[in-house]
């Protein structure tokens, strides 16, 4: 017997997750971060123009994947603490500091959370840095990192195309094509590509709308 409620409405009550693709890449002089814009609840796109590039401090951003609620609350905690510490110390926090604060929250509460974060930014000591904080609460510094459900389709692409010390244009192309490809292949990712370039001058946000996304091999 076809039960309307059971078939459709149960889907809407599923936890809101950011089935996602996010990327953060260091280049010569800074980092560039990029994400898709789909937030899904089961098969319903709750938000098709989400901004997953979350500021933590002036030149430190984080990319959130996993449970939307978990990642939002943790990034606002870390943002609070980095702001408090920078006032106390009289200097801006390093990306390393912010990333380690994320680690404390993710590790100490690992039983309750389903959250993976990429913390990326620029500071005068290390330049551009990318820290990857996967599900269990570990932390690892990497030249680039991908996350979310769509990242599985990008491992080959990244391994083949990443180079150290790219120019800003090369890095911009690298992430844009990456997110575009993941959107094409991953059902949990979609919408537009949002980017942010973080360097010593600050943050520049860019967007690539759906109709401008390059079409790769498609019938």
């Amino acid at each position, binding site marked *: 017997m076809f039960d309307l409620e059971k078939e459709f409405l149960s889907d809407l009550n599923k936890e809101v997750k950011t089935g996602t693709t996010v990327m953060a890449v260091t280049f010569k002089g800074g980092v560039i971060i990029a994400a898709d814009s789909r937030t899904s609840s089961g098969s319903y796109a709750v938000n098709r123009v989400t901004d997953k590039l979350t500021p933590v401090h002036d030149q430190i951003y984080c990319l959130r994947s996993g449970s939307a609620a978990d990642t939002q609350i943790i990034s606002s905690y870390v943002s609070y*603490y980095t702001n408090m*510490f920078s006032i*106390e*110390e*009289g200097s801006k*926090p*390093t990306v*390393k*500091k912010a990333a*380690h*604060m994320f680690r*404390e929250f993710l590790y100490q509460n690992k039983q309750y959370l389903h959250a993976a974060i990429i913390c990326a930014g620029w500071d005068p000591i290390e330049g551009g840095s990318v820290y990857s904080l996967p599900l269990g609460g570990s932390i690892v510094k990497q030249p680039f990192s991908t996350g979310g459900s769509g990242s599985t389709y990008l491992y080959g692409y990244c391994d083949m195309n990443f180079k150290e010390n790219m120019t800003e244009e090369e890095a911009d192309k690298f992430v844009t094509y990456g997110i575009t490809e993941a959107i094409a292949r991953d059902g949990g990712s979609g919408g537009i590509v949002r980017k942010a370039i973080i360097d010593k001058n600050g943050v520049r946000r860019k967007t690539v709308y759906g109709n401008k996304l390059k079409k790769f091999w498609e019938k």
Partner: protein
Amino acid sequence: MSGIGTGYDLYPTTFSPDGRIFQVEYAHKAVENSSTAIGLCCKDGVVFGVEKIILSKMLVEGTNRRVFSVGEHIGIATAGLTADGRRIVQNARQEAKNYENFTSDIIPIHVLTERLSIYVQVFTLYNYIRPFGCSLMIGSYDEEKGPSLYCIEPDSVALGFYGCAIGKGKQEAKTEISKLKLSEMTCKDAVKEIAKILIKTVHDETKEKEMELEMSWICKETKGKHKLVPKKLIEEAVEWVKGQENEED
């Protein structure tokens, strides 16, 4: 001595009519009863020296410490009630450890000083816990920022110094310190100068028993880590001071 603050000096929760909190001032007196400690900021580090009165020949040297490490990079010298000093150092160590666990960075000295200051101040608010009867000098050395020295008194005021003295002989010591050219002095020279001030100026051989010198430093040579000054250097400094006395005679 007694009778100055009569009526208004029972609890830290009472102000006197002229706006003083006598209990906190009496805490200062406890510091002034103790032997002197000196801290100097030199061009390549910070040096602490403490005059320790040897109360009994049975006491093992090097025990009854007045200088403590907080993390690896910060040193604290105390004057006043030693047990009170140890309590605050315990708190400082906790703060430093928590900061490091949370941020993976070592705690900057001015952050630690501010937090200790806030901690000490809490004890001047209530009538069921007494203020700390000790002053602390907190020192650290950083390649970029250079040497830093702060002093926290029982009233929780924390000030930054180039050179500081606390305890019984602080007035004479401060006079001598002001004559020194600290920005041109190295830590090795400072060891000698501190030994001179403590042995000659501050320590009264006729009135008091023998003294022991406890000295520590955080400098370029120790790579920014707080360490006790090697015994050999202290002995050389004491010899030098004795030599100076003979010259002047």
